[in-house]
């Protein structure tokens, strides 16, 4: 029972980070192979606050999210200016992910490569579920607002978006900051759930897994990536595949999804849309 609980909790924590990346990739159309670093910033910032400074958990959690958002500004401001090119950012974030790991491994306060052990395990499933629900709600509101609509317009056609009064730079930057904020929140929850964090937990491998969940779940969808990320965490556990086969199972899932649903599980639609369509279809017949 405890085991199932912890798997579900971990899956829900991961879903928050995937949700964050989905704003940036699925809705704004920019790719990132470095978002795990933002999860790491949130994890380390909040853990350091509770571990060394006895800051209350909730405040540390929020601070971690804001720290991730602030770091994303540092990368985003110089790289997202390029008008119609997003490769500058993609390369910069890739480099940042590596640099971040090296920094963590060499700082004293992070305890280097050995990682921070003995972080208080404040995170419980109810807390995670509340945080997840809050994140989904915020994301949904964002996407309905002028800001989210501007993101989607940029994904669809940057030139036409500009001609609709959308500022490319500020919109892309906002999208990045919000996505990093959610990743940071996820990191804080993760640190205080596992009680132990280590630089290798926030590298290219994890970034790729986040991106895979967004793409397999479907671009332009909230529910799709959430479902995919849940699947990616829970299925290997449920099948109780040995550790060495886990990546294989994971890869196999990806391949199957890409063969049978190349647009992702829920590409450009949401779970409620499916039901609505079914109802209206049966209504006209």
């Amino acid at each position, binding site marked *: 029972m405890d085991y199932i609980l912890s798997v579900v909790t971990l899956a829900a924590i991961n879903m928050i980070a995937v949700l964050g990346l989905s704003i940036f990739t699925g809705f704004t159309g920019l790719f990132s192979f470095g978002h795990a670093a933002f999860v790491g910033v949130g994890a380390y910032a909040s853990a350091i606050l509770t571990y060394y400074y006895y800051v209350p958990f909730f405040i540390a959690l929020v601070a971690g999210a804001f720290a991730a958002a602030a770091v994303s500004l540092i990368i985003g401001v110089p790289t997202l200016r390029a008008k119609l090119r997003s490769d500058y950012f993609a390369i910069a974030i890739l480099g940042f992910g590596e640099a971040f790991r090296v920094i963590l491994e060499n700082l004293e306060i992070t305890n280097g490569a050995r990682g921070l052990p003995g972080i208080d395990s404040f995170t419980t499933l109810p807390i995670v579920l509340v945080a997840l629900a809050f994140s989904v709600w*915020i994301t949904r*509101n*964002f996407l*309905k*607002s*002028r*800001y*989210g*609509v*501007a993101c*989607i*317009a940029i994904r*669809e*056609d940057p*030139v*036409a*978006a*500009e*001609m*609709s*009064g*959308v*500022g*490319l730079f500020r919109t892309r930057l*906002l999208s990045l900051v919000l996505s990093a904020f959610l990743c940071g929140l996820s990191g804080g929850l993760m640190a205080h759930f596992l009680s132990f964090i280590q630089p290798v937990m926030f590298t290219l491998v994890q970034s790729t897994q986040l991106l895979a969940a967004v793409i397999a779940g479907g671009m*332009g969808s909230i529910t799709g990536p959430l479902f995919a990320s849940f699947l990616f965490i829970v299925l290997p556990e449920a099948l109780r595949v040995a550790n060495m086969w886990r990546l294989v199972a994971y890869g196999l899932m990806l391949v199957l999804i890409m063969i049978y649903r190349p647009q992702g599980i829920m590409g*450009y639609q949401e779970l409620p849309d499916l039901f609505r369509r079914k109802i209206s279809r049966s209504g006209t017949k």
Partner: protein
Amino acid sequence: MAHLLEMENLTKDFGGIRAVDSLTCCVDEGSITGIIGPNGAGKTTVFNLITGVYRPTTGAILLEGASIVGDRPDVIVGKGVTRTFQNIRLFNRQTCLENVMTPLLQRTPCSLFSALLRTPHARRVDRTVRAKAMSLLVAMGIESYADAKASTLPYGLQRKLEIARALAAEPKLLLLDEPAAGMNPEETRSLADLIARVHADFNVSILLIEHHMDLVMNICSPVIVMNFGALLAVGRPDEVRADERVIGAYLGRKKRDGNKAAAPEGAEGEDRHAGARR
């Protein structure tokens, strides 16, 4: 009549190609001004310069007397210039209503805080914008497609949707790049009516690029004729149509009806520029 938009000695080079060549012309407030010219004359480039997609190599662009050179496209949109595209550019996976709501939302203030928490203010904004967008779809006669994805619309209606979206930014000056491209004569006539109605109802000045001569001749005045990036002639449609140089450079080449012989000047110009391009 006051000049809404003025271009002075506008020049744009792409590497060795001079796409626009010291063009001086203007759009009067309240007019429907036409731009015609053979393929590659630089018409679309003029639109790209006005809307800030490209920066002019030299020259000035004044909107209501103030320079807009160097402004970002979204800033220029905010100052009241919007456009449609020669190759339709819609937000394809969005519904028609969402397409039109996008520029409207950008013009409606709503703080990020209010947006994230979806406060009553944010909800009110959403409602009013939705209603406004719907009324624009009605004005274009495509309200029955409000919930259809933009990419699923037939070609002609996509053009209308693009006009609706351009109007949603509440422009003073609307730039239409070949709105009748790919339409049959009957569709073109109804589009001409639509443009005339938009011009009157939305109190907007229009600058229009078109190859359909009948459309230009019916609703545009004055008409600007471009050839090889430069101004060839400007005047009322009947004046322009009678202009020898225009017949030679544009109509002659297009229709290939023997007018070339009657306009040696135009042919000469063509050779000179063709040489310069190489």
